C-alpha cells in the first residue's frame, strides 16, 4: 500500500534529492556531451552549429579505429589478468575467517588513499632501467644488464592491472560471500565431483560478479590515459588518451565527445549483459 507524498515528507525530500542529483549531475552533463558530439568544431568557441555527424564519421578513420582496437586489446588483456588473479583471490578471501577477511579487505583498500597518479609514478620508479626491479634481477643474477621494462606495452598493462585489480576483486568477493556452502555440498551429494561442481554451480553463480568486475575494469582500462602517459611509449595509446588529446590539445570537442559516447555505449551494453545474467538467477531487484 502506497502512502501519498503528503503523508511522507521525508520520503518526498529523498526522492527530490535523488532525482535532482541524477538530473543535474548525471543526465545534464551527459546530454551536454551528446550535444557536443553532434556539433561542429570551432577554434574560438570550441563548438558551434550546424549539427552534423562528422565526429562520428571521423571515428571510423582507420587511424582511430586502430587506436580503439589496440586500446580494447590492452584493456581486454588487463581484464583477463585481473580476472585470473582476482577470481581465486576473491574465492580464498571468502573462505578465511571473518577477522582475517576484514584485514585483507582493508589492505586491498589502503592504496586508494594515495592518488593513483602518484602510485603510477611509484611504479615508474620500480620499472625504470635503473629501477628497483632491474637492480634486483641483476643482483640476483637473473639478468646481466637492465631490461627495457618501462615504456612498453607490458608496463602499461602492469600499471592498469595494478590500479584496477581491487575493482575486480570486490564484486567477486561479494558473490563468493553469497555462495552458500550447502549448495556446493548438495552438488557433491548428487554425484558431482569438484570439476563438475565448479562448472555447473560455482561458475554460473559467480557470473554476475565476473561481469560486474569486467565492467569495472574493462571500461576504466580504456580510459586511464595517464597510465600510458607515464608508463607507455608513444604507441600504447588508450581511447582515454584520444579523448583527452581532443579536448585539451587538438581542441576538437565534437570528436572527443563522440569518442566518449562510444565508450559509454560499450559500458551500457555490458551493463545490459550483467542484468540478463542476474535475472537468470532471479535477482533482478538486487
Amino acid at each position, binding site marked *: 500500500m502506497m502512502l501519498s507524498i503528503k503523508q511522507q515528507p521525508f520520503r518526498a525530500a529523498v526522492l527530490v534529492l535523488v532525482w535532482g542529483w541524477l538530473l543535474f549531475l548525471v543526465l545534464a552533463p551527459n546530454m551536454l556531451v551528446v550535444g557536443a558530439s553532434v556539433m561542429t568544431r570551432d577554434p574560438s568557441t570550441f563548438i558551434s552549429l550546424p549539427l552534423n555527424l562528422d565526429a562520428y564519421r571521423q571515428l571510423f578513420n582507420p587511424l582511430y579505429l586502430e587506436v580503439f582496437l589496440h586500446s580494447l586489446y590492452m584493456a581486454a588483456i588487463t581484464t583477463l589478468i585481473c580476472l585470473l588473479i582476482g577470481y581465486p583471490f576473491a574465492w580464498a578471501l571468502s573462505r578465511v575467517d571473518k577477522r582475517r577477511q576484514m584485514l585483507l579487505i582493508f589492505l586491498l583498500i589502503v592504496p586508494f588513499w594515495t592518488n593513483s597518479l602518484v602510485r603510477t609514478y611509484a611504479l615508474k620508479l620500480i620499472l625504470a632501467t635503473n629501477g628497483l626491479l632491474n637492480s634486483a634481477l641483476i643482483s640476483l643474477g637473473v639478468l646481466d644488464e637492465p631490461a627495457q621494462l618501462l615504456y612498453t606495452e607490458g608496463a602499461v598493462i602492469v600499471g592498469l592491472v595494478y590500479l584496477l585489480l581491487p575493482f575486480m576483486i570486490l564484486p567477486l568477493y561479494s558473490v563468493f560471500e553469497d555462495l552458500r556452502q*550447502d549448495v556446493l555440498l548438495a552438488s557433491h*551429494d548428487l554425484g558431482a565431483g569438484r570439476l563438475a561442481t565448479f562448472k555447473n554451480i560455482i561458475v554460473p553463480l559467480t557470473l554476475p560478479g565476473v561481469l560486474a568486475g569486467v565492467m569495472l575494469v574493462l571500461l576504466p582500462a580504456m580510459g586511464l590515459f595517464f597510465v600510458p602517459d607515464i608508463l607507455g611509449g608513444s604507441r600504447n595509446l588508450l581511447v582515454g588518451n584520444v579523448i583527452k588529446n581532443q579536448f585539451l590539445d587538438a581542441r576538437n570537442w565534437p570528436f572527443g565527445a563522440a569518442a566518449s559516447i562510444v565508450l559509454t555505449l560499450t559500458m551500457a551494453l555490458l551493463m545490459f549483459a550483467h542484468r540478463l545474467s542476474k535475472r537468470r538467477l532471479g535477482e533482478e531487484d538486487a
Partner: protein
Amino acid sequence: MTETLLSLSGISKQFDEKTVLDELSLTIDDGEFITLLGPSGCGKTTLLRMMAGFELPDKGTVTLSGVDITQTPPEKRPLNTVFQNYALFPHMSVFDNVAYGLKMEKRPKADIQERVEEALAMVQLEDFAKRKPHQLSGGQQQRVAIARAVVKRPKMLLLDEPLSALDYKLRRTMQVELKRLQRELGITFVFVTHDQEEALSMSDRIVVLKDGRIQQLGTPREVYERPANVFTARFVGQTNFFPGRVTSIEGERISVDVFGLNRDLSKPPFRVAMNQSLHVLLRPEDIRVLAPDDTEGVAGHIVERNYKGSTLDSVIELEDGSHVMASEFFDEDDPAFDYSIGERVRVSWVDGWEWLLAEEGDEPLTDEEELAADDAEH
C-alpha cells in the same frame, strides 16, 4: 528379517578441541525410519554429515552394506541428503534441479526426462517443472529438495531438520507426506530433528543424543514411556519428577514412599537399596486430579490452568511446595469441567504407571536444552 544397512562404530569427532561425537556406535536397519533427536549442539547434524561424507570422523568407521565408506567422498556414496534450507540451485529450473543427479550419472536424456517427471509427480509438482526456485513457496521448495534427493533412488535418505523452516500446519502436512514417501519408496530415512513431537510421530526408532553420546535408542513408545535417564525423560515430553524413597524390597517388588503415599512397584532394572532415594516419573497425562474431599492422593491447590483445546493442562502446588503438571482430557459428560486458580484438589495417579529412575547427581537441564525442549513443545 531386518538387515543392517549402515553401521557406525566408535565414531569420534572434535572441532577446535571440543568433542562433538564421543565414541559413538549405531547401526541402522534397511528400510527403517530412524530419527536423531537432541538439543542443538548434541552432535546429531555432525553425525548425519558424516553419513553423507561431508565430515570425516577423527576415529571410527562407517560401513554401508558391509563396505567401509569412511573415506569415500560424498559424490561416490549412494546416499542423498535433504538440506535444512533446501540448498536448491538458484540458477536452475525445478526440472534441472531434480535432473542434476541423473545428469551427473550421464544417463540418457529420455531416461532422465521420465524419472524427473516421476519424481515431480511424487511430490505433486508436475506443473512447476519450468519454475525457478525463487518462484516457489517454502513448502514447494522443500518438495523439490526431496524430489531431487530421491530421484537417484539412494539406499538411504538423510534429512537434516528438513521441516524446521516451515510453519506449523505445513510441517504437519509434510510429516505425513514424508511418511507416505518412505512407505512408497521403501528407502531408509535418517531424520534429524530437535522437535520431540515430530520424532515421536514419525519414527520407527529414535536415537536420543546429548553431548555426542547416545542417551537412548528405542521405539518412540520406549523412549517416551521408559526413558533411560533423566535427560531423556526431560527432553522428550513433559515429566513430573517426584522424590521417592525405597521402604521395602521383597523379591521382584519394592515399596516406594512418595509424598507419604506408599506405592508397591515392580523392581526397576537398576540396583536398589533400602532407604535409597530415586526419581518417580509420571507424565502429566498420568496424573488424576481428584476432589478435595477424596480419600486418595495428596492435597494441593491449582496455581495455573491452560486451556489447550483437547486437554486442560494445570499445575498443582502441593503442601510441600512442589509443583505437579497434570493434563486431562475433557469429559463429554461434564462440559463445564474446569478449575479456578487456588481451587483445592487432591492429586493421584494410576497405580503402576510410575517409572523409576536412579538419581544421577541430579543434573538440571542447561538453558539451551530447556529452550530446545520448549521449542519442541510448541
